[in-house]
């Protein structure tokens, strides 16, 4: 039973990590390897807002999300826009940004266990005999609400529909007057905001450590590859698959195998069905 509950929580956590990355890649085909770095950075921004500048918590949260969105857009406008379209250069550039941010934070002294964010709601409750923090329940609730909200957003608002159009067929969208660079900036801003939302929800459950930047990136990529690019359903399903697989290995094998599960999931997917579970792109079939 506790496997079910912890599995669900872990799965929603993974989905939260992956949403921002999936959005940016789905819309503008930009593999944003700086995703994990943005996650950690927004955690530290929130911490600084609360502790260094002494702002109150709700204001800090809003401020962090806005600042992170701006940082994401800046990353795109300053760097990634110049290498748009060259897949390998995009990866190298965004990875270099990630390294600069993460290792820069590490050098700047953000090390150790002292950096924490307070949870939104403290205390815990008991579900079916398993003790669960309110914060974790909040994570699940917000995660589910977020997926629902994003679905509505991309199906019923102008910007959302523009993003979807961009994701489906860039040239057609361009012909209809949707500017691909503007959409990419919007996607990066939204993706970064989703990353910071994930950070704000999840970091109170532990400490803010630079290492989690790499972990988040790997897990987000794993979810997107297993689920297939361009599919919300696939990403959510993949998050649940990997999430439960991780919890099962923790229970039966040991806590340190978690990341191995992610890597194995990626390798298995690449061997068996490279376009992912619900991949909409024919990754391998090129028009000859």
């Amino acid at each position, binding site marked *: 039973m506790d496997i079910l509950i912890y599995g669900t929580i872990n799965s929603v956590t993974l989905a939260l990590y992956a949403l921002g990355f999936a959005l940016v890649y789905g819309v503008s085909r930009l*593999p944003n*390897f700086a995703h994990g770095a943005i996650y950690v950075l927004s955690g530290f921004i929130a911490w600084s807002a609360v502790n260094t500048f002494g702002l109150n918590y709700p204001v800090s949260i809003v401020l962090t999300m806005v600042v992170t969105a701006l940082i994401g857009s800046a990353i795109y406008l300053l*760097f990634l826009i*110049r*290498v748009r379209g060259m*897949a*390998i*250069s995009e*990866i*190298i*550039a965004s*990875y*270099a*940004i990630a*390294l*600069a941010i993460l*290792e*820069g934070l*590490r*050098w700047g002294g953000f090390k150790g266990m002292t950096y924490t964010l307070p949870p939104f709601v403290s205390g815990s409750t008991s579900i079916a005999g398993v003790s669960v923090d309110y914060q974790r329940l909040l994570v699940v609730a917000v995660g589910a609400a977020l997926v629902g909200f994003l679905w509505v957003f991309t199906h019923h608002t102008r910007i959302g529909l523009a993003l979807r159009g961009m994701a489906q067929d860039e040239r057609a969208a361009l012909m209809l007057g949707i500017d691909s660079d503007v959409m990419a900036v919007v996607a990066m801003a939204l993706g970064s905001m989703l990353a910071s939302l994930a950070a704000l929800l999840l970091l109170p459950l532990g400490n803010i450590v630079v290492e989690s930047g*790499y972990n988040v990136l*790997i897990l987000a*990529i794993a979810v997107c*590859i297993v689920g297939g690019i361009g599919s919300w359903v696939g990403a959510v399903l993949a998050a649940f698959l990997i999430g439960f697989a991780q919890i099962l290995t923790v229970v039966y094998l*040991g*806590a*340190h*195998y978690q*990341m*191995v599960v*992610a*890597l194995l999931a*990626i*390798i298995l997917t*690449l*061997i068996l069905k*490279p376009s992912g579970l619900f991949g909409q792109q024919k*990754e*391998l079939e*090129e028009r*000859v």
Partner: protein
Amino acid sequence: MNAESGQRRRERIDRGIKVRTAGLYALMSWRELAYLILPRLVLIVGLLGLPMAMPGMYWQRVISIVCIYALLALVFDFLAHFVGLVSLGGAFFVGTGGYLSALLNVKLGLSPLLCVPVATLLGGAVCTLLLLPCLPLRGVYFAIVTLMYPLLLARVIEALNILGGTDGIMGIDSLPSAWMEQYLVIVLVLVVLFGLRRLVNTDLGLVLRAVKDNDQAVRASAMNVTFYKSLGVFIGASIGCLAGACLVHIYMWAGISTFALDFSVLPIAATVIGGSGTLVGPVLGCLILVPVSELLRDFGTLRIVFYSLILLGFTVFRSEGLMVFGQRKYHQFERWKSI
């Protein structure tokens, strides 16, 4: 030609001596021979003479490290520009080769002179096997997987506490003599550099370059693209494992830091600075970057920030790199031509 419009354009033409040295005509005179041989001679003599020019334990160590990184940079340049696969995780090869050589030496008691070659080939095979799933797919996946392997392997070793865990494997024999320790890696760098330059102009090398340019055409020519990519990866991985094997015997220790980020990022930064595609450029880039990074070692992970910023700058602003610029200046001259 149009009438004089008062505008000019820049024209680049091969130098006369470059044209005269094409093919057999290089033997026409001493001057032509010198034009071809001199740069290579400078490089060889320079590298071989480094240990003598900079005596002292500290500098010997630095030179060895430069050569290890040079091997990794050569691997990156070879894989990225001649096979079309961008390897973001050179540390994967170094770590595999290093640990294999350490195990062969410590557990089986083999001499380092035996461990290194065995670790090279075995490590190359192991790495190629592990990378096999992503070879039939687009290059993006190779980049992602090579990125993740060193990060994950380091964590696995740490978490499972196998292969020495966080302490690493200690008590590895060093190379038989001090001279060998200094010169082995330098000679290896020269051999690999000139070997790879030869390789990319052979028929096999042409096939690998064709796989990079146009893999559909290679398929239509009845050749298995995945096989040739694996061959390219095997060559690259073996050289990387060679570097790792040498490393652990120089340091006499193998640990998690053999999977460190430095081994992944510095070769890439060195390649972009030195000039990608030239194979000589990456070596030069290492000669520049590694001493700088040693100086920055006191500042903790600032050096990684430093490499990443350089990498970012060169990638985003698409600068050529030193050797590309240098080769152009050496082989061609420019002049204004009125239009």
